[in-house]
Every structure is written in C-alpha cells, then in structure tokens.
C-alpha cells in the first residue's frame, strides 16, 4: 500500500494522468462550448446574457473549492507535518487565484447588462474580492519567505484565517440584501435551474475540473523534479 505512494509511482501516475487529460480535454471542451453557446436556451428574463453563467459559476465554484482544500490540507499539515501537503497546496493556490479572478471578471461582465453596473460593493462581490486577496497573500508567502518551516506556518495561518470568509461567501446572498441572486443549485433540497441549463453547466464544470487537474498535475510534477534536482547528489 505504502509502496504505491512512492515518488516514482506517483511520478508515473502523474504522467499517465496528464496524457489521459490531454487526450480527452479538447473533445470535452468542444461538447461543453457547444452546449453553452449553441444548444442551451436563453433565459426568459436575462436573455442570452445568461450564457456567461457557464464560465462564471464553474470558475467561482472552483475558486471556493481550491481554498477549502488548501485550508483542509493546511490544518492537516499543521497537525501531522506531512510535507507533501505543502507541495500540493503550493500547486493548487495559483489555480484557485486564477479561477477567483475569472469569477470576478466574468461576474462584472454579466453584471453590466443585468444590473446596469460593472461592480457594487455588496456582500457577495466584496467577499469574493476578499477571497482573491487571501489567495494573493497566500501565494506571496511562498514567494517572499525563504525558510520552508516559516512558509508552512505563515501560509497555514493565512489559509485558516481566510477560511472564515468561505461561509460568508456562501451565505452572503441569504444574510444580506445583495444584487447577486441566491443560489439556484442546491446540494440539499430542490434546485431552481432547468435541466436544459443544468446540463451545459455541468459540462462546463467538467471542462474546468479537467483543466484544473491538468495544471495541478503539471505544477506538482514540477515540484517533484525541483526536489529531486536539489537532492540529486544525495540519492
């Protein structure tokens, strides 16, 4: 069992996964885009502008998911001192920042035709902006600090403090009166989105997930090589 998780097995698994994702990615992308831009119907109020949802919502979900994952691994790393979690977090953080920025930008582009404004400092938008700042602080900790122990401590503290913002983002549309609409898709309870829109959304979510996995694997592979290079004379 433990032999399976040796660095050589992990390395070849990463390479196989990268090859697999590369082989199916463009097919899934074309299917997702066809659903999102051609086959899905316009909204009865928002018209065709609703198509922005197919990039905005998966980006926002992944931005939140990445930070939740980083927080979980930071806590586990804080307790169990598992060095691999440090490298996983380092590889995930730029992906989370990218998706959070994209959610904010596409949200702004959706806001202009829908609300008549590019930006408003309401609860949902502000809390997403705060998430972006936490991602920036988190990545800066890796860039600016030198000692690995210090990086682990500082980045874990940033992640744990930043995680307080996650439920605020989720429930901001319920706790405060905001321009942003409440959630249409619920894990528990019935969703208010029609299946003709849900299917393209799930297809685009799959595209974003595959992309995130691909970038993560490439960055994690880079980290493995960096460590191996550092230890080359010791092996």
């Amino acid at each position, binding site marked *: 069992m433990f032999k399976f998780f040796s660095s050589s097995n992990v*390395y070849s698994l990463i390479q196989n996964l990268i090859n697999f994702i590369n082989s199916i990615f463009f097919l899934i992308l074309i299917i997702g*885009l066809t659903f999102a831009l051609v086959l899905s119907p316009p909204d009865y109020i928002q018209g065709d502008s609703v198509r922005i949802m197919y990039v905005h919502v998966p980006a926002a979900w992944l931005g939140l998911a990445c930070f939740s994952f980083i927080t979980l691994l930071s806590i586990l790393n804080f307790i169990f001192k598992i060095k691999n979690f440090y490298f996983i977090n380092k590889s995930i953080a730029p992906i989370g920042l990218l998706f959070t920025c994209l959610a904010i930008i596409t949200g702004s582009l959706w806001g202009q035709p829908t609300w008549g404004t590019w930006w408003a400092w309401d609860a949902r938008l502000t809390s997403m902006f705060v998430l972006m700042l936490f991602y920036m602080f988190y990545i800066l900790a890796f860039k600016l600090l030198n000692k690995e122990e210090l990086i682990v401590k500082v980045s874990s503290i940033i992640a744990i403090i930043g995680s307080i913002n996650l439920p605020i983002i989720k429930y901001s549309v319920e706790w405060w009166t905001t321009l942003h609409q409440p959630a249409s898709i619920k894990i528990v309870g019935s969703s208010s989105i029609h299946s003709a829109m849900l299917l393209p959304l799930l297809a685009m979510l799959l595209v974003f997930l595959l992309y995130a996995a691909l970038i993560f694997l490439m960055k994690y592979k880079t980290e493995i*090589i960096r460590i191996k290079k550092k230890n080359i004379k010791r092996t």
Partner: protein
Amino acid sequence: MITDFIAMNGYGLYIWLSFGIVFISCAAVYLKAKKTLKKYENDFLDELQNLSVAEKNKALENSEVAQQIVAANSKIN
C-alpha cells in the same frame, strides 16, 4: 445566421468577452506551467550531465524518478 449567433441578441460583446478572457487566461497559465515544467526538466538533466559517471550512475540507480525523467527526455548520454 452567423451574425445572429455572434450578436447574441445584443449581448455578444459581454458573452464573447467573458469566454475570450477565460480562454486566453487559461491558455496563458497552461503555457506558463508547461514552460516551467520543461525548464525544470532541462535543469535536472543538465545537473545530471554535470555529475561524474559514477555519481550519475548512482543517481540513476537510486532514483526511479530520475530514470523516468531521463527516459522521457532521452537527452542524457
């Protein structure tokens, strides 16, 4: 028909700009990640080349990851 598709009932600018920004940003991050990975692979191979034959053999013998990097790049003598 194509004009209608591009116009998206007046929302074309917002929709294409959203999809375009996402596509360009994701492509840029992908290319950057790929370039960095390639750079580290090359640095690793250069480091391996600079070792003596005995050190190189020992490094390859003891590290399957090193063997895989070398095999994937087929750059080492």
